[in-house]
Structure formats: C-alpha cells, structure tokens
C-alpha cells in the first residue's frame, strides 16, 4: 500500500485515538508489575531491576520492624516506616529467598510512609528494606532467624 503524507497522518490520528481510548479504560495500576525485578534470583540483580541506576545508602531515618526470630517462616510480619520526605516507593527484599524481591509499594505525596505486610522466608536471612525518596535509595536491614522455613508444604 502506498501512503501519501496526508493519509499517513490520518492513520496516525486514528491510531492515537485508539491509544487514548485504551488509556481512558480504568487502569488498575500506577506502574505495572515489574516482572524482571520479581523474578531476579539474587539481591543485587533484583535491586538493579527494581531501581535501575539509583545509589543506595544506609539510613537511620528508615525504621524496619520485624521479629529477630520467626518461628514460622510462612508468616513473618514486617513493617517499614520513615519520616523522609518525598517517598516514592518502599520495597522489601529477603536476601536468601529464591526471588529476593518480596513486595514493592508505590506511594504518593498523599501517603504516610508506613506500610505493613506479612512475608514468607525460606530460611534465616537478611531482610532488606529500601525507601526511594528524592531519587535516592535509603536502606535498612535486619537478620531474621527462621526456625521453620516458609517455602515448603
């Protein structure tokens, strides 16, 4: 098919209209599920996939609440909170899980940076919380000893 300049723009216009129609369908997500980050099998690669190019620094401004000893690795209660301004997201990583990234929370200015979740831990491992704020990553980590792993039956 030979396209004149005019008909090319006409087609483009139709395409853009279609895209707009798609975009106006209520979307469930701010950001889609980050499959690369959730399937990464090492802590460093999971962090790199979730937060490409961001520098990490340890911070005492981030509070991580998790048990020192978890009797049941299938249900480990974890809370993360911070007073840092402009928090964009909070992510939780279990270093020794087959896929370290466990959960990631996208926050807005409307949120109070205080989240809780229950995680599975396959074995005793470091639990790493990263808070993304002002284009930087603030890290706090804690070891959680697991008596009974949470990934088996």
């Amino acid at each position, binding site marked *: 098919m030979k396209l004149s300049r005019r008909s090319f723009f006409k087609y483009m216009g139709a395409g853009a209209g279609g895209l707009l129609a798609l975009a106006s369908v209520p979307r*469930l*997500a*701010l*950001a*889609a*599920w*980050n499959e690369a980050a*959730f399937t990464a099998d090492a802590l460093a690669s999971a962090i790199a996939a979730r937060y490409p190019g961001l520098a990490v620094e340890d911070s005492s401004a981030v509070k991580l609440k998790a048990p020192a000893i978890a009797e049941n690795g*299938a*249900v*480990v*209660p974890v*809370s993360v909170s911070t007073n840092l301004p402009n928090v964009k997201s909070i992510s939780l990583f*279990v270093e020794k*899980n*087959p*896929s370290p*990234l*466990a*959960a*990631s*929370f*996208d*926050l*807005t200015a*409307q*949120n*109070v940076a*205080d*989240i*809780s*979740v*229950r*995680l*599975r*831990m396959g074995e005793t491992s470091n639990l790493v919380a990263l808070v993304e704020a002002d284009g930087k990553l603030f890290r706090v980590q804690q070891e959680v000893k697991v008596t009974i792993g*949470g*990934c*088996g*039956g």
Partner: protein
Amino acid sequence: MKIKASAKGDVIKVKMLIGHIMETGRRKDADGKLIPGHFITEVTVVHKGVTVFHAQLGPAVSKDPYLAFAFKGGVAGDKITVSWIDNKGETETSESVIR
C-alpha cells in the same frame, strides 16, 4: 476480602486481609510435579478517584495477604475501593467506608 479503614486525626489507616492462596510456583504435589504459581501481583486502593496505594507483590508474600498503609486527605464516611489482580488475571474489587 476484609478491609478496615479508620480515621485517626488527619491520617486514615487502612488494613486489609485478602483471601488468596498465593501459591509460590516452587512447591511440588504428591506426584512430584511442580504446582504452578498463583499469586496476587498488584493491589490498588482508590479514594475519590485518586490512587492512594499501589502494591506490587511477589509469591514471597504470605498466603491470605495482610497489608496495611496510611494516607492523608480522607475523612470518616468516605469510601475507598480496594482491587487486586493476580498472575492468572483474576481480580476482585471491594469497597469500604472510612470509620
């Protein structure tokens, strides 16, 4: 799914408990065959047309996920809508009123 949203001062605290198997995809059945993963990937909470919470979850989140977060800008009586989608495309949406 159970949702509890309560106003404490100007902060709305939201707790939710979602019934979901959260199958990891790494367990084996009695015949030694891998049970395919089946887990929630995203949870979204909307208040007055604005997304106030968005979580991306992996299979390392416990069965029947419990999530809690807080936001500002709501008052008692407002409605919030919680929806989730899993890796098989199944979804559930539920509403709750802030108390």
